[in-house]
């Protein structure tokens, strides 16, 4: 029983990271109808930016982390202004390949720094544990869960109660009508890309104590994208819930089912869920 709860807690924590990356997919997709295949690379870039600012430029960790997230957010905005905007109105594949290529350029850029390409690094977060009775939780996992809850709350408030958030929602519901109502749609697109990039960077920082900072850490996006699909691709709460669901399913399958099952169980569940709920888990509340 104890092992079960223990594994469950780890599954929730990893699921939260999947969920955050899935959120960034959904945020961008909702606003611009583009599937961004560079979220994993933005995640990696965010973690390396924080590492570089902290370990090599000597900034305090908190400042470095905030600067990294803001920096990657600005990068997202700049990329939208200069490159991604041109993909609007083109076939979907154009944007997909464009983001894919931009992601490869980011990887190449980071890999050109020998220290980054050659080694794994750790951000000096606390590596201690917290014991609740017989249950032992890693503080890094608790941080991940707390940060995810906080971010989800902030995003919900932003989309419900701020003019900008409402405008962004309006754009994603119907860009043409939104434009007629005087909403600057282009600016909203820039904002969506900036938010999506910043979210990926935050996920990178949260992942850093779990897997360390290295060139391939962005591969986690391969798990997060199914979560986004499972959540319906247009529902923010759906993406988050689906991420946690996948994380937990993966962890518990590894514990309870025969060896090897954990690698395919999440995907079987994913297919089953899509069969039963074609709109995704959060489908009804999305654009449907």
């Amino acid at each position, binding site marked *: 029983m104890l*092992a079960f709860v223990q594994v469950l*807690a780890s599954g929730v924590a*990893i699921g939260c990271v999947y969920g955050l990356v899935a959120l960034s997919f959904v945020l961008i997709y909702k606003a611009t109808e583009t599937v961004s295949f560079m979220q994993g690379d933005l995640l990696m870039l965010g973690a390396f930016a924080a590492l570089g600012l902290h370990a090599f430029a000597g900034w305090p960790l908190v400042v470095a982390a905030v600067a990294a997230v803001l920096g990657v957010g600005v990068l997202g905005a700049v990329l939208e202004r200069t490159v991604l905007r041109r993909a609007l109105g083109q076939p979907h594949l154009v944007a997909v390949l464009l983001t894919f290529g931009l992601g490869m350029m980011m990887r190449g850029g980071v890999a050109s720094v020998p220290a980054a390409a050659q080694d794994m690094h750790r951000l000096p977060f606390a590596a201690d544990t917290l014991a609740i009775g017989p249950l*032992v939780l890693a503080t890094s996992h608790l941080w991940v869960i707390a940060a995810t809850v906080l971010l989800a709350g902030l995003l919900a408030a932003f989309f419900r109660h701020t003019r900008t958030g409402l405008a962004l929602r309006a754009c994603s519901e119907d860009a043409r009508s939104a434009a007629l109502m005087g909403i600057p749609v282009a600016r909203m697109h820039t904002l969506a890309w900036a938010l999506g990039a910043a979210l990926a960077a935050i996920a990178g920082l949260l992942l850093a104590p779990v897997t360390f900072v290295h*060139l391939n850490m962005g591969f986690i996006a391969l798990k997060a994208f199914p979560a986004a699909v499972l959540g319906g691709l247009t529902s923010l709460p759906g993406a988050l819930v689906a991420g946690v669901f996948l*994380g937990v399913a*993966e962890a518990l399958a*590894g*514990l309870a089912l025969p060896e090897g099952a954990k*690698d395919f169980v999440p995907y079987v569940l994913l297919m089953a869920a899509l069969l039963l709920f074609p709109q995704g888990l959060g489908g009804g509340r999305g654009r449907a």
Partner: protein
Amino acid sequence: MSPLRRLAFALASSLSLACALPAVAAGVSADEIVVGTVSDLSGPIAMLGVPVRDGMLMRFDEANAAGGVHGRRIRLAVEDAGYDPKRAVLAARKLVQHDQAFAFIANMGTPVVMASMPIIVDAGRLHLFPFSPHRATYEPLHPLKFQNFAPYQDYMEAATRHMVRERGYQRSCLLYQDDDYGLEVMKGVEKALAGLGTELVERTSYKRGATDFSSQVARLRAARCDLVVLATVVRETVAAMSEARKIGWDVDMLVTASGYSAQTHELGGAAVEGLYGVSVLPHPYAEGANSQLAAWIERYRARFKAEPNVWSVMGYTLADLFVRTAEATGRELTPESFARTLEGMEFTRDYFGSPAYRFSANDHLGNRKGRLAQIRNGRWELITDYVE
């Protein structure tokens, strides 16, 4: 002269010229030997490729500074294939045709080696000590192929047998990467346990790039393992140990040479204290080094502005094997004469703490053994000699 007669004359004169000179191998001139390497300086194992290249450069430069090998300077021609077999083919062709490499040393990565090895041996060039545990690098016996990296299966069998026999573990388990590497280790561990009349109690795998090991570790704990063999690389080693210690499980773990790296204790900190590992070549720690090793570390630091690691030692050692064999071969240097000399060579233990490398006419694999080490006070300490 008609054009035809002129051609015939030219052919005849070049033939007679060729007969007058002693047989000279590709890549060997009066004052130079060209050695090629298809390395990875930008890809996923650049963390090995760069220090290996630097180690080789250092040894060759020392040989050149001492007057070269029988008056010939050694030039290392480096190509970067980035772990990509397509680029490896191009790189090998360039080194064979353009640079006329006499031998290839330390080609980096199994996909690279598998793609480029046929080109190299078909051109009649030596294929020495590639960074690939694949058996094809030394079996079946080929006159131009030599290897000195112990295969996972052999040294993990010896290491597991030693651990279980000496320390009396009752319930051995395995956590392995779900690919060739993990399966190779599994074979070795199973063989060792079968020899001791027991078997694996539990085995569990992970995919490359896995983030979370909580379910694997919980599973192993539920099986009440008292020894967990890890077929993991650095990050997974740290993750598995951290997870076990986090949930208060004080089990002994033994990792392959892929986890024997200074990065393991640098990243893992207190959580990896007590981890056992297999070393096929010791890490060059500056602290507590013998005087020769300390001087070597100083030279390396001064030259490359970086700390040497086990891969730098590896590169240096491989280049050293080449230089010493070429010295022993004499002035008449051909791939055949070099290979026959290497078959008779015995390289004794050196100040790095390397194993003794020994080749023969029937066996082109120079070493099959590793030694056990343990992380104590934040660094690897060797705890046994090379185990049989």
